């Protein structure tokens, strides 16, 4: 039988090239030009030992949209077409060294651009912009990530670059989960009912809903199942009496079902 898949008609598809002059509304140009300098700072600082997370505002350095490196070998066979090729070091020299002391490099740097959206026009249109338009200045420290990885006894050695990659994946994951949860919180306000002017609180129940609603979050259902349905008395900001998210599910019971430890905090 003749297998003839139909190519999608791209005649109306006109992806925008990234306008690199005004990268985002919030980022002034000069920062973009300083990437080159700051990208070194990022790896130097992060790699040094992860001390002092609270003050760390590590930036995600950017460069021009990824292009396949010419002078380098493309060893990575399983890359999908369209992806930038990169060579992976062999077993011996890819090992993760113990954290070495490093100078405190500049931690603030330019923010990264929303890469996924406009830089692929060729067949990756199915992949959405994983950053959802968000540019993060903060990320989970690499050392912390490595520690979590190696808490699993099955995990052996980890290449130097790997925690950086996981860090990036984690950022994208967090963006997704946070924004989905916020969406749930916003959606339940039911049009505002005259009240939703002030900041709304995203509750664990919203995150739970977001987890259930998204297939890729299936691995979190165990954690989500521990979130109680009802909540304690609300903060009382927008409670119009009839249409609040607490009353939607179960009648709010004052102290029942509160399995969370930080029960000193009430909504």
């Amino acid at each position, binding site marked *: 039988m003749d297998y003839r898949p139909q190519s999608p008609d791209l005649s109306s598809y006109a992806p925008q090239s990234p306008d690199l002059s005004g990268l985002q509304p919030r980022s002034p140009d000069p920062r973009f030009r300083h990437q080159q300098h700051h990208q*070194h700072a990022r*790896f*130097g600082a992060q790699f040094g030992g992860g001390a002092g*997370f*609270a003050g760390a505002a590590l930036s995600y350095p950017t*460069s021009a949209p990824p292009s396949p*490196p010419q002078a380098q070998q493309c060893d990575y066979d*399983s890359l999908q077409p369209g992806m*930038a090729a*990169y*060579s*992976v070091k062999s*077993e011996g020299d890819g*090992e993760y060294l113990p954290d070495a002391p490093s100078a405190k490099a500049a931690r603030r740097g330019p923010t990264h651009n929303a890469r996924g959206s406009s*830089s692929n026009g060729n067949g*990756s249109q199915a*992949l959405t912009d*994983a950053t959802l*338009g*968000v*540019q*993060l*200045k903060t*990320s989970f420290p690499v050392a912390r*990530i490595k520690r*979590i990885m190696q*808490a699993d006894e*099955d995990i*052996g*050695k980890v*290449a*130097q*670059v*790997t925690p*950086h990659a*996981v*860090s*990036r*994946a*984690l950022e*994208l*994951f*967090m963006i997704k*989960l*946070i924004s989905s*949860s916020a969406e749930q919180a916003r959606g339940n306000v039911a049009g505002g009912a005259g009240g*939703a*002017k*002030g900041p709304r*609180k*995203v*509750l*664990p129940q919203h*995150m739970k809903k977001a987890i259930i609603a998204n297939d890729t979050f299936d*691995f*979190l259902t165990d954690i989500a199942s521990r*979130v109680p349905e009802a909540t304690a008395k609300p903060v009382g900001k927008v409670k119009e009496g009839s249409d609040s998210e607490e009353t939607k599910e179960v009648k709010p019971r004052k102290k029942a079902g509160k399995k969370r*430890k*930080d029960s000193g*905090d009430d909504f």
Partner: protein
Amino acid sequence: MAVHSHHHRGQSGITYLSAAAARVEADKRDTATVQKIINEVLSSPSIQGENGATMTFAKETRDLLIECCVEFITMLSSEANEIAEKDAKKTIACEHITKALEELGFADYVPELVAVADQFKNSQVAQSRERKQTKIEQSGMSNEELIKAQEELFRSAGEKYNSVPS
């Protein structure tokens, strides 16, 4: 899958048990980092609602988020580890991570990770390692020769030191 349980440690620590019975306690420092990220996401124009109202996360929600993050890292590592083993590799490399992401339904993250790996190669950390290794290789001497040369240097340095008139 994994077995989860909570242990109170007297403070606001979350103890997590993975299938390998490993323990990851939530760091107090985690909350500061995560809170920053939460703020950045919620205040991003692409996330805010039409009326521009900025949402906030309840404390419990933030704690829940941290748990999810730890679970994500653990799951991703576990999957990547299996892929590395199938690849007969003892070290988890970036390509194992990207493959794992694809397996787990996060294929859209892969381009971003490839960019990270790319930049890492060009970063000072990777380059200085490369230079150090190359320098040793380029000396053209075997390990034994290098050790001998080093001993010779030590010796001559010692002689210079001892021969200085006191």
